[in-house]
C-alpha cells in the first residue's frame, strides 16, 4: 500500500534573556553546577515566582514573526510530575490558554513552497539536568538550567516528508536567531526538537497512530530520524502489524529509533492554572511597540535582496543565512556600489576564509568598508582581479586595508599608456611570425600576445588597457 507520512514538530527554544523566567538568576551556560540558583529556582518552601517581562516580549516577537494571533490573555499552568531535575515537582508552563496561536510559516523544498501551520507558542520554564556517575551508582543534579525561559512552538501535522520537517525546523531556527531571542545552539540544548510521526494510507483523511521521536540534536539527525521512522512504520504496517503510540529515542550511533517503553510511565500531568501567577495580559499598545522593534525576517530579506540587488535566489539565500552576514553584504554593496561583485567576493573568498577558521562574520578581520575599497580599486583599474585575490588573502590574515597591502607589495597596476606601449612595441618586434599570423586573420594568437605582455609586466598591467593597446598596435594602425 502507498502511505503518506504525517509529521508535526514540537520545538523548544531557550530565550536569550539575562535572567531566568521566574527569578533573577543568570541564564549563562557553562557555569559550575548549581551556581546559578536561588531559593526560587531551587523550589524551596514558601518562595513565589515573579514573571520576567522580557520573556513575554521575546515570546511575542516569535509569535508575530510566525504570523500567530497573540492572545490578550494567557495563563500559566502547572504541569505536575516527579523527577529529580524538577525541584518543585511541577513545571510552570502554559496549557489551556497559551500566549500565541494560529500561526504559519512558509517553507521551501525541492517540491516548491508550502505553508506549515503553527498550532501554538507558549512560555515555560526549563528543568535541570541530571549527571550520572557511571563508576559508583549515584546521580547528581545541576539546577542551573532550572527556570531558564523556553518557548515551545508546536506545529500543525502539516509536513509530509523528512525533507519538509528539516526545512521547517531550519526556518524556525533562522527566525529565532534573526530575532536575536535564541542562540539556536542545538548541542547545548538551547534549540531542541521532538517529532510526531505517523503514516496513513494515501488519500485517507484520518491520522494513523503516531510515535514521538526525541533525542535528535542536529538538523541532520531530525531528518535521519524521521526518515528512519517513516520506513520503520511502513515496514510494520506492510507486515500487517500495528504502530504503537509511544516515545522513541533516536540512537545516533546505530542510526535507528528505539522504543522507550518501560522506561517511561504513562503520565497524567494534572494541569491546572498556577495560583501563584496572575494571567498574562498583553495590550494592543505593547504588541504595537514590540512590532516596531521586529527586524526584517530572513524570508523578506531574501526577497528584497533579489529585487534590490539583482542577485540570484541562491545567492540571496547564502547571504541571508545570518543577520550579521546580510548586514555585512549590504554594507559592502552599498559602499562599493557593486552588489553583485560584492556578493561574489563574500561568497567566494570571505565565507571560505571564515568557514576554514570557524569564525563568525562578526569577527571578520576584513571590514565591509575594506572589501568595498578593494572592489573600487579593481574597478578604477588600480589593480587587476588577479592581484585582488592576493590582496584579500593578506587583508584577511593581517586585517590591513587594501591600500596598505598594495603599497607594501608594490602591486600597483601599470596604467601608464606610453610605458605599456613601449613594452608592446618590444614584444611585437621580437615576435614577427606571430604578428604575421594575427594579421592574416588568425586571431587566436591574440591570447599569446596578452600572455607575453602580462609576463613582461609581472601581471601588473591593466588587462583592459593591454587589450586596447594590443589591438591597435597589432593591426598596425
Amino acid at each position, binding site marked *: 500500500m502507498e502511505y503518506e507520512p504525517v509529521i508535526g514538530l514540537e520545538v523548544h527554544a531557550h530565550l536569550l534573556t539575562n535572567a531566568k523566567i521566574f527569578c533573577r538568576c543568570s541564564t549563562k551556560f557553562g557555569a559550575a553546577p548549581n551556581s546559578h540558583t536561588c531559593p526560587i529556582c531551587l*523550589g*524551596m518552601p*514558601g518562595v513565589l515566582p*515573579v514573571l520576567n517581562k522580557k520573556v513575554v516580549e521575546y515570546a511575542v516577537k516569535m509569535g508575530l514573526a510566525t504570523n500567530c494571533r497573540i492572545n490578550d490573555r494567557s495563563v500559566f499552568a502547572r504541569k505536575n510530575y516527579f523527577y529529580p531535575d524538577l525541584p518543585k515537582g511541577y513545571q510552570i508552563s502554559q496549557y489551556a490558554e497559551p500566549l500565541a496561536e494560529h500561526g504559519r510559516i512558509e517553507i521551501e523544498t525541492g517540491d516548491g513552497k508550502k505553508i506549515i501551520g503553527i498550532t501554538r507558542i507558549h512560555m515555560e520554564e526549563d528543568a535541570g539536568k541530571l549527571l550520572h556517575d557511571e563508576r559508583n551508582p549515584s546521580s547528581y543534579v545541576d539546577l542551573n538550567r532550572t527556570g531558564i525561559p523556553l518557548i515551545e512552538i508546536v506545529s500543525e501535522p502539516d509536513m509530509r516528508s523528512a525533507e519538509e520537517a528539516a526545512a521547517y525546523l531550519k526556518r524556525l531556527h533562522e527566525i529565532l536567531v534573526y530575532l536575536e531571542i535564541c542562540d539556536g545552539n542545538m548541542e547545548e540544548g538551547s534549540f531542541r526538537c521532538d517529532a510526531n510521526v505517523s503514516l496513513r494510507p494515501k488519500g485517507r483523511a484520518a491520522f494513523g497512530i503516531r510515535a514521538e521521536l526525541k533525542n535528535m540534536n542536529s538538523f541532520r539527525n531530525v531528518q535521519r530520524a524521521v526518515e528512519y521512522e517513516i520506513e520503520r512504520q511502513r515496514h510494520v504496517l506492510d507486515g500487517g502489524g500495528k504502530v504503537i503510540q509511544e516515545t522513541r529515542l533516536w540512537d545516533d550511533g546505530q542510526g535507528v529509533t528505539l522504543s522507550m517503553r518501560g522506561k517511561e510511565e504513562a503520565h497524567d500531568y494534572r494541569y491546572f492554572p498556577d495560583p501563584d501567577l496572575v494571567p498574562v495580559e498583553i495590550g494592543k499598545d505593547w504588541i504595537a511597540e514590540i512590532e516596531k522593534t521586529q527586524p526584517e525576517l530572513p524570508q523578506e530579506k531574501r526577497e528584497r535582496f533579489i529585487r534590490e540587488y539583482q542577485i540570484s535566489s541562491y545567492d540571496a539565500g547564502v547571504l541571508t543565512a545570518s543577520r550579521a552576514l546580510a548586514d555585512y553584504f549590504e554594507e559592502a554593496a552599498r559602499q562599493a556600489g557593486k552588489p553583485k561583485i560584492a556578493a561574489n567576493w563574500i561568497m567566494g573568498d570571505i565565507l571560505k576564509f571564515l568557514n576554514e577558521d570557524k569564525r563568525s562574520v562578526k569577527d571578520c578581520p576584513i571590514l565591509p568598508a575594506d572589501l568595498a575599497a578593494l572592489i573600487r580599486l579593481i574597478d578604477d583599474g588600480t589593480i587587476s582581479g588577479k592581484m585582488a585575490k592576493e590582496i584579500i588573502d593578506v587583508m584577511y590574515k593581517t586585517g590591513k586595508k587594501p591600500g596598505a597591502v598594495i603599497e607594501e607589495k608594490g602591486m600597483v597596476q601599470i596604467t601608464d599608456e606610453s610605458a605599456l606601449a613601449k613594452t608592446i612595441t618590444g614584444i611585437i618586434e621580437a615576435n614577427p611570425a606571430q604578428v604575421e599570423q594575427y594579421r592574416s586573420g588568425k586571431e587566436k594568437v591574440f591570447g599569446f600576445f596578452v600572455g607575453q605582455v602580462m609576463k613582461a609586466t609581472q601581471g601588473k598591467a591593466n588587462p583592459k588597457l593591454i587589450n586596447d593597446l594590443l589591438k591597435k598596435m597589432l593591426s598596425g594602425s
Partner: protein
Amino acid sequence: MELNELTIHELQKKLRAGDTSSTEIVQAVFKRIEAVEPRINAYITLMKDVALADALKADEAVKKGDIRALTGIPIALKDIFCTKGFRTTCGSRILENFIPPYDATIVEKLRQAGAIFTGKTNMDEFAMGSSTETSFFGTTKNPWDLNRIPGGSSGGSAAAVAADECIASLGSDTGGSIRQPAALCGVVGMKPTYGRVSRFGLIAFASSLDQIGPFTKDVEDCAILMNGIAGYDPKESTSIPQDVPDYRSFLSRGIDGWTVGIPKEYFIEGIDAEVSEAVQKAIKCVEGLGAKTMEISLPHTKYCLAVYYIIAPAEASSNLARYDGVKYGYRSPDGQDLLDMYKKSRSEGFGAEVKRRIMLGTYALSSGYYDAYYKKASQVRALIKRDFDDAFKTCDIILTPTTPTPAFNVGEKTGDPLQMYLSDILTISTNLAGIPGISVPCGFTKGGLPVGVQFLAGHLEEGKLLQIAAAYEKNANLEKRRPNL
C-alpha cells in the same frame, strides 16, 4: 499585671516613658513560657537567646530615640513562616530539620518595625487541620481548658497569645486557621484581603486561599500589627499594588449609621446554643452603637465546604510535591531506587491528614475528573464571591459567629475528618471570596470557654473591620478574664 500580660500599645507607652525595657519584657515572656509551656505546647521552637540579644539592641535603640511601631515587642511566629537561619517545620516531620536561607517578607517587615521573635509556634501539619492535632510536634492545648484543643491550624499562635506566652503573634488563614483558633482561645484574629499581606516565605498550603494575619489581645494591637505587615510586595505576583492606610486611624470612628448584614445561612442548626446566645448579644451591642442590622442571604453558602475541599487539596497536592527527599527535608534511609525513595520519604515524612488531602487533590485534578471537580469548583467559587459582592452593595459589614461550637475536646474529632472539616464552616467562604474577616471575643460559655464573633467586609476594607471591631470591643462590656493556668 505582669509585663507579658500587657498589649503592644501599653508596652510601647511604657517603653517610650522609660518605665520598662525590652529586656524586661522579653524576660517576663520567657518566664511565663517556662512556667506554662509544658502544659500548653504552643511552641515548636523557642528563640530565647536571640530574643534576649535582640532585646538588648532594642533597648539601645530606644535610648537613641529610635522607637518604631514594634520596637522591643516579643512576637511569636507560626512555624509556617520562613525564618532565615531558624528551622521552619510547618508542623511536619518532612521539614523537621529544614533551615531556610531566607526570611518571609512579613518576618523582614516585622524586624524592620523593631519586633523581637520569641519562637515558632505549633500548627497543624502544613496548616491542614482545625485543632493543631495533626502537628508532628504534638497537640497544643487550649489555655482555657487543657483538655481541649485551641483550634487550628494556627493553634499555637492563638494559644501563645491567650496564655501570655508572647505579646502578639502571626498566623495564616486558609479556611479559618486564624479566626477559628482566635475565637476558641478568646483573642482577636484577622484574616486580611487576599493579596494585602505578602505570602512570600509563607509555606504554601493552598496558594489561592492562604493569607497571613495577626493574633492580638485587643483590636488596637491588631491594627498596629496590620500596619506592620500589610503592603505590596514585588516578590509576590498576587500582591495588591495599593497603598496601605493607617489602620489605627479607624479605631475611634464608630459605626453610627452603618448597615450590618446578618446572613441567614450562618445561623443554622448545629450552632451551639451558647455560641448563638453570645453572638445575639453582640448583634444587640452593634445595634446599640447606631448600626442597623438586616437579614441578608448568601445563597451559595451550602457549597462552600465542598468547593473548599476540592480547591484547597488540589493546590496542596501540587504545592507539596516539592517535598520529595531530593533537595532538603526528610529522606527515607531505606529507598531502593528513585521511585522507592520518593514513596518512602513521603510516606514516612507526611502525616495522615496531609496524605489524605494530597490524595483528594490529586484525584480532583486527574484527567477525566478535572472538569467535574476542579473546574466546577472554580466556577462555584466565582458564584460564592458574587454572593459577597452583592451583599456588600446593601450592607457595610457582615456579622456571623466565628465557629459553630466552642473548643472541643482533644481527640474528639480526630477519627471523623468530616466533623473536623465542619468546624471551619463559617470561616471558609471568606477565603474563597478573598475578602477580609476578623474574629473578636464576644463572651464565654457557662463552662468558661471563649466565644468569638466574626465580622466580614468587602475587598481591602480591613479598616472597616477594625472600625466595627474596635467599637464593639469598647462597648461590649465583656468581663475581663484570664485563663487560669
